[in-house]
């Protein structure tokens, strides 16, 4: 008894995790649509994957704007006189807007059956799509005072999470054995990469000094344990890898099951990483 402190809020709420999730899927879906120009088995995904990507991009953008306390001022982020290029958010804003513009152009050329331009826009859009999970990772990485976030893993982890969640969604609309096999590999390899990165992340967090150590405790045995360890790692990463390795994991139904689990995991991991990095400091 007898302590007095001012309480502090976590600046970034769970909405950001939903944004990370949505935008990650959008990026990966664009990538699959772009891939269809170069790999014939992806052809069935060309239009549906693009549609999903575009809808989620719009939803993600709106979510981001709505989360600002001054939503109408999101235009400031497009004002060259204001932009601060040492902030990943500034780069992210530009990336998001250019990706949106390229997506619209790509949609138009696809409708006109202009294959040559579509192919070029597909490549440009895919590179911009890759930028989305990278910048969201950097958003977290740059804060040197935050355990879990401040590791070079974040951008790479977010790319892997994006690919995994995107492939999981794609299994629900995919047709054709060859395509399904490719998606299975995408899910397996990216889930494997996520699992490997999580092991390192847990290691550096557990032994990263007192703030990190406490964060590790909150994320494993503490309030976030069920979400991070339970949903994120066991249900959302280990279980789907196991399913994908069995025989039924090679059928579409098994893949859908794994995909569903991966989506749960992808959301849980993003949420617990976002919140995990903020718990300890609210007490400082």
């Amino acid at each position, binding site marked *: 008894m*007898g*302590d007095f402190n001012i309480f502090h809020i976590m600046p970034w709420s769970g909405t950001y995790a939903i944004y990370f999730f949505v935008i990650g899927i959008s990026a990966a879906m664009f990538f699959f649509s772009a891939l269809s120009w170069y790999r014939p088995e992806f052809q069935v995904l060309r239009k549906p994957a693009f549609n999903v990507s575009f809808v989620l991009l719009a939803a993600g953008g709106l979510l981001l704007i709505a989360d600002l*306390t*001054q939503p109408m001022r999101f235009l400031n982020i497009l004002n060259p006189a204001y*932009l601060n290029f040492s*902030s990943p958010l500034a780069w992210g804003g530009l990336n998001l807007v250019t990706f949106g513009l390229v997506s619209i152009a790509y949609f138009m050329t696809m409708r006109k059956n202009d294959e040559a331009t579509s192919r070029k826009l597909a490549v440009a859009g895919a590179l911009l799509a890759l930028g989305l999970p990278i910048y969201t990772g950097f958003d977290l990485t740059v*804060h040197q*005072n935050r355990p879990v976030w401040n590791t070079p893993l974040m951008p790479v982890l977010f790319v892997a999470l994006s690919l995994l969640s995107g492939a999981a969604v794609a299994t629900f609309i995919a047709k054709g054995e060859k395509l399904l096999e490719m998606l299975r590999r995408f899910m397996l390899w990216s889930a494997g990469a996520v699992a490997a990165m999580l092991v390192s992340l847990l290691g550096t967090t557990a032994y990263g000094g007192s703030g990190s150590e406490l964060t590790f405790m909150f994320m494993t045995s503490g309030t976030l344990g069920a979400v991070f360890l339970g949903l994120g790692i066991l249900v959302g990463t280990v279980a789907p890898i196991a399913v994908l390795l069995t025989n039924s994991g090679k059928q579409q139904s098994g893949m859908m099951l794994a995909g569903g689990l991966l989506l749960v995991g992808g959301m849980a991991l993003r949420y617990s990483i976002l919140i995990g990095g903020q718990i300890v*400091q609210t007490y*400082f």
Partner: protein
Amino acid sequence: MSELRISSIETRGVPGKKRYAMVIDLRRCIGCDACMVACKAEFDVPLGVFRTWVPYKVIGKYPTVRKMFLPRLCNHCDDPPCVRACPVEATYKVDDGGFVLQRYDRCIGCKACMASCPYNARFMLPKHRTYTDITRVVDKCTFCHHRVTQGLVPACVQTCVGRSRIFGDLNDPASEVSYLVNSLPTQVLRPEEGTKPHVFYIGADRNHTEIGRKIYNPQDVMEVERAVFNQNHS
């Protein structure tokens, strides 16, 4: 000896420039909270949020107990991560003086600066305020820029009954803050973050400056208060 400067934004020891700093002598702080009140009055700081605050902890077990205060405020870091993090330069550092200030009309409310400040020095202004329409943007201590540029000291320094808070230009070797920082052992908060804070403490205790283990099992009464606070402020 000149200070090692990593980033060009730092102005400590740069000739011809002021670098204001605050020294807080904890041996003299009696925890009267007059500074908190002076700050609230100076800026009409809304309920529940603070530009400066004085947390205390009771350390030890009877009969060896001690009540410790640690006045807190923005450290006006020489290499401020909040300035780096703001996408629209709504937070910026004044080159001459080292004040870290806000442009209220530009802030979009993304809270990146709050995420990047290791000291919880920043807060979001509420939707409704009585005397001003500056709402829903991030705010923080300004080192009383408006007073200091008029030759006064910050309101909290002016009012401090114990003369625990001392303010001045660290780049001026004849100032009182230079004398204190150069002749006494001082501490800053979380120096490992590389922010180069410019609030120096004399006699800060590790029980206060470290992130304590106790937060893993916080007292129930604290958690009840916290839940109420979060309801009102998120």
